[in-house]
């Protein structure tokens, strides 16, 4: 899932009609000082990172003077929030908030429809409210072919305990957020808090939009906003992950690569979503320390495979490499193995000493077997070799467990 940074999320809400506080970006203490001045001398400084719970990390601060703005901006810009170094700040108009509500939209796998969640007590502890007083958190399934009707939104706000005219303000916010959710192909659209101000208006004081990766083809504008700052979802990309992204970008039409670097020492290029996950559990059970996870979708991807193998083999301290996938129905495995063989050759290691265990099954297996034989020392297996056999074998050989067999 692709999470937009907060200023992008706020811009999208505003563009679709939902009021948001005045805000500005700052990438230095000086910029923060002038942003705070423009916002009236009092503002909230927030770390601009693609993860939640920033407040609990001390990365959100109210500042009321230029000195305070400079000091707090310098401090937050020096922070790393949940693995993400803070490079920019969002300075936001300080609001006088009377009440905080929680509002969000997501998809419910059970009804296969959008689900709206609303709680008249929002803020950072909404999970706790849901756990201790679950009746306070209301859910409204929305028929995607009908959309959200205003009377239903108003009813939800009233059932949550709001009275008019505040309930009408909340219902309007619900309808606007639903428009954003649909228009931007969101997986999740969350406003927390939806804040009631002293004058009775409601504004989206903070917001997180997660855009559907599978729909980015029709949102080039959103894709452009995402960029590398995303990281891999929970931390910034490592240099090796950036290399693999660059390899993947060589040809966007064949073999999409998914890659995550781990801290281990066994190159673990075992693909197929379910097969990879099952094998990962198995290699951990065997005491193996995988150095990465890797997946590639079918296609004419020899060159991508060659470069990917080369890149993974360049990781320092690697003790072995496992290459495998679930049995293939149609995709010829010799295509993948041709790329692997070229990558192994280019890396130029002595594979009688550096363990490489390979398992593929399916069409093209005879040719794959012939290709692998060109690289002395590489261990080749086919259909009868299970994912458990594979994981045990690479761990045994990489850590010389039970002696050389």
């Amino acid at each position, binding site marked *: 899932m692709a*999470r937009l940074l907060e200023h992008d999320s706020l811009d999208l809400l505003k563009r679709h009609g939902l009021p948001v506080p005045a805000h500005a970006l700052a990438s230095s203490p000086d910029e923060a000082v002038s942003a705070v001045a423009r916002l009236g001398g009092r503002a909230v400084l927030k770390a601009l990172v693609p993860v939640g719970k920033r407040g609990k990390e001390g990365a959100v601060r109210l500042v009321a003077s230029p000195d305070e703005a400079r000091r707090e901006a310098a401090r937050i810009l020096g922070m790393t929030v949940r693995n993400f170094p803070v490079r920019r700040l969002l300075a936001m108009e300080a609001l006088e908030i009377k009440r905080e509500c929680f509002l969000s939209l997501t998809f419910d796998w059970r009804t*296969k429809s959008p689900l709206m969640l609303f709680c008249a007590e929002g803020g950072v502890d909404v*999970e706790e409210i849901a756990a201790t007083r679950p009746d306070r958190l209301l859910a409204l399934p929305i028929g995607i072919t009908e959309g959200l009707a205003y009377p239903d939104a108003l009813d939800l706000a009233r059932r949550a305990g709001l009275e008019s005219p505040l309930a009408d303000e909340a219902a309007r916010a619900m309808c606007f957020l639903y428009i954003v959710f649909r228009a931007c192909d969101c997986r999740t659209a969350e406003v927390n808090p939806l804040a009631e101000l002293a004058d009775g208006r409601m504004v989206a004081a903070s917001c997180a939009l997660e855009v559907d990766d*599978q729909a980015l083809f029709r949102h080039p504008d959103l894709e452009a906003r995402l960029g590398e700052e995303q990281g891999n979802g929970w931390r910034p990309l490592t240099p090796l992950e950036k290399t693999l992204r660059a390899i993947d970008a060589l040809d966007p039409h064949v073999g999409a690569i998914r890659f995550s670097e781990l801290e281990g020492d066994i190159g673990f290029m075992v693909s197929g979503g*379910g097969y990879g996950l099952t094998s990962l559990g198995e290699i951990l059970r065997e005491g193996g320390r995988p150095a990465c996870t890797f997946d590639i979708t079918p296609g004419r991807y020899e060159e991508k495979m060659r470069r990917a193998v080369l890149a993974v083999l360049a990781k320092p301290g690697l003790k072995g490499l496992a290459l495998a996938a679930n*049995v293939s*129905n*149609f995709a010829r495995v010799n295509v993948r193995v041709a790329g692997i063989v070229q990558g192994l050759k280019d890396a130029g290691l002595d594979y009688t000493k550096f363990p490489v265990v390979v398992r593929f099954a399916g069409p093209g297996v005879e040719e794959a077997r012939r290709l692998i034989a060109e690289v002395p020392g590489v261990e080749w297996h086919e259909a009868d070799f299970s994912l*458990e056999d594979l994981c045990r074998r690479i761990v045994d050989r990489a850590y010389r467990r039970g002696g050389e067999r």
Partner: protein
Amino acid sequence: MSILLDGRTRVLVQGATGGEARRLIPTMTAYGTRIVAGVSPGKGGERVEGIPVYGSVAEAVKEHAVDLSLLFIPARFAKAAALEAIEAGVPALHILAEGVPHHDASEVLTRAKGAGAFVIGPNSQGMISPGKAKVGGTGGEVPQLMFRPGPVGVVSRSGGMGAEICLFLTRAGIGQSTYVAIGGDLLIGADFVDLLALFEKDPETRCVVMFGEPGTGREEEAAEFIRSGGFTKPLVAMIPGEFMETMATPAPVSHTGALVERGVGAPSMKKRLLREAGAMVAERFSEIVPLVRRALGGS
């Protein structure tokens, strides 16, 4: 017997003149799949492997009775094609495309429900009733290497692992009644419960293997379905990914996910509920075949 698909099932292929369909149609017909017609907008009147092609689903169903439409349609066009089939009254759709936008899937599944159409997928690799018929990529050109007819129903969220399970069952001499890859996306049509209900009614199926994944409550619902008496045959279940529960969890992106799932979705919980409902849970891949053997009565 089998479920959903056999040699009499009349199959329509949408996207019939595309490269993938042209490549796969001969392997399907050679195996026994009864493909009655194809659809490709603007290509009405052509033939693919002897199969008549129409410009729209509506035209095709005017000339042919259709039980199932198989969509060889890229993700970005899948919604339009699926809605066309639903509107034309096709009773069942099989959507293969990976990467269908969630908003599109939601719309298709909602419209299908309203029209009473059965949907498999999206992001399904295919299905096969060994010895009778197959749709999608499942089994490739030589399905006999991976599948053989027999008493075991197989249903998997992962197409790769479903195929791998069938491969090892077949190598152990154990055949399958029907294997269905239900698709790995958040929003899919037929679920474990729908398939278990069909396998329950199929006299040939004596045991079912179910391969789950972390996330959603599909496996939890299957456990509840068994408890309520909806499925009474032996069930062998595997759900990988429990190791993820003890890993340092990535920072939650938002509150919403936690609020919607509320603890549902963890493999350990799925396995516990399935065990309590009487299912045999395989902790490792190598346990599946022996458990199936035991379920079939030590044969």
